[in-house]
């Protein structure tokens, strides 16, 4: 299946992934890929901590949504980004709904195993909200921080007004 890649806020369809996929079982058996591009496929019931030491070997980590309701991979992705500093691609695989893609992007997903026919709907879903209350790996400023910035700007303009 092709992968939708999210880069700088827009989606583009990539050809079939070039990475060789390594399963968790293979990893546990001691497989440690060296040369080439590899992707580690993690089930959603493992702690990402287990593979934290080897993350830099992988161009992508593939996390799973066996059904859309099963939201464990949201936590896994956020941990990979925030706690373990993973910079490669985090790819979502499984039952991916249009209306979940924004949350996925917010917690750090930037690859989606879905067909090209989804590009438009996914892009639309990504732009449905202007502001967010929480800080997250997508780096969007949380609302409280925008409020503080607005307050500071207001204060500055008042000070400048007085100085003028």
């Amino acid at each position, binding site marked *: 299946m092709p992968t939708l890649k999210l880069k700088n806020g827009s989606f583009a369809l990539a050809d079939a992934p070039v990475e060789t996929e390594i399963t968790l079982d293979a990893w546990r058996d001691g497989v440690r890929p060296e040369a080439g591009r590899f992707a580690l496929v993690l089930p959603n019931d493992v702690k990402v901590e287990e593979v934290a030491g080897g993350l830099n070997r992988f161009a992508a980590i593939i996390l799973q949504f066996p059904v859309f309701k099963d939201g464990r991979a949201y936590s896994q992705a956020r941990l990979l980004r925030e706690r373990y500093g993973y910079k490669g691609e985090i790819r979502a695989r499984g039952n991916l709904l249009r209306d979940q893609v924004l949350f996925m992007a917010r917690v750090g997903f930037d690859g989606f195993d879905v067909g090209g026919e989804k590009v438009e709907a996914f892009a639309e879903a990504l732009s449905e909200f*202007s502001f967010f*209350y929480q800080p997250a790996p997508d780096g969007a400023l949380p609302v409280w921080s925008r409020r503080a910035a607005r307050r500071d700007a207001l204060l500055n303009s008042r000070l400048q007004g007085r100085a003028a």
Partner: protein
Amino acid sequence: MYRYDEFDEAIVRDRVRQFRGQVERRLEGALTEDEFKPLRLMNGLYLQLHAYMLRVAIPYGTLSSKQLRQLAHIARKYDKGYGHFTTRQNIQYNWPALVDVPDILDDLANVEMHAIQTSGNCIRNVTSDQYAGATAEEIEDPRPWCEIIRQWSTFHPEFSYLPRKFKIAVTASPHDRAAVKVHDIGLILKKNADGETGFEVIVGGGLGRTPYVGPTVRDFLPKEHLLSYLEAVMRVYNLQGRRDNIYKARIKILVSSEGVESFRAQVEDEWAKIKGSGVDLPDEEIERIRRYFAPPAFETLPENSASFEAARKADPAFDRWARVNLAAHKAPGYAIVNISLKPYGKPPGDITDAAMEAVADIAERYSFDEIRATHEQNLTLPHVRKDDLYTVYKALDEAGLATANIGLVTDIIACPGLDYCDLANARSIPIAERISERFAAKGGEEDIGELKIKISGCINACGHHHAGHIGILGVDKKGEEFYQITLGGSGAEDASLGEIAGRGLSSEQVVDAVERLVDFYKDNRKGGERFLDAYRRMGHDAFKGVLYADAQA
């Protein structure tokens, strides 16, 4: 009261626009009902027995008159002229048409309201004490913290697809009116030995199929760390909670199967790693939100009101209402007024559009423009001058809202039951109505004293039957409705789960059985004992025997 700024407003408007698109896709047939279901559920829209049901959030139960008028408008324009207040301080409309729902959400957004996360496996509307900001009992007003939780939990990207629904309640009083010990997370504001304010954190309480009184996971959490600690709890739950069985998916099952020590260790370990990571709000933002909840400009008044006392002497019905429906206010010369939505023989929690308008008018004039919804399906006017009480009473009476039964045997909690709900096994409302009629006819309610009857039409326990002094659970036996009685539950600070009293009773038998329980209590109580106290002293078997007395005869 909190007011939206441009950001809060934009988020709610974006949501309405998004849902309008989803409804259009559904109506055009681009979405199947299966695909639409998770989307509508995230907006509080259920498909019930006869129609859609829309659940509107009333964050921590606080409403302005303008907001209540809008709820009345919605009832009139899109529904059958009434709404139903729930056990989680929300309001439900039972008859909206799907095509109208986006317009309803727009109408709500016009008064800074929404239906976000009133259903689905996400963090639901946060609930609180209806006396917040009005009672002298509390450490501080809990509502700023509720609003902080509301914002943090709204569209949380990590915690919107949890194993199961998630309910948080906050109180700041020793007298628990928010049932915090039977919530997924209960927060109690308290002071430590050094005089600092923080939260006792209770995790894993709940009712439903497997009820638990929640254990304390942290005795004292410095309040500035509330959000990071909540994230730690949510993350442990999101990753470890069961997803293979819907009946074992709530956090209470995780806490109970892990054991509270192990669960606590996991949360503390997670918290240590995220504490300084920018999840907690900066002080200025906490202060910004707190300022919205500054006390209203109370007048300096004497504690006692001569006109109030004179009216009590002159009008016995007012005197009774004053005894039963008022509570002490922190400001001298003021009172907290409870409005019963349990008129005798009527469905608990229902209110017409005209009655909502009446309450809104009274609140605007006499209660600093504020109304509260309570988890016991009543309303509260938090700040009324004692000098105005008789006028307020008269106005309520004229609107049919002066039933004097707060906390008494006819102040019954009941879920919608089989009259509306497609999960129910049995009807709840007719049982509530008949018990109410029986005791209204019999009289002596005040003499019976505090007695909490709670009725659920199925094991999901929306009517909190486990937490009723007398709980009634509807069950289906071969197509016939039966009612199982539980005794001795409480959702207050002395929380306990009711004990099942044995085989079910028919709907014919259940009212007589409740009456026998009450008579037995009256014959055997000592001193000022409440029903619950007498039950706890005398034991389950004593009361159980009475319950089945007619069957043995």
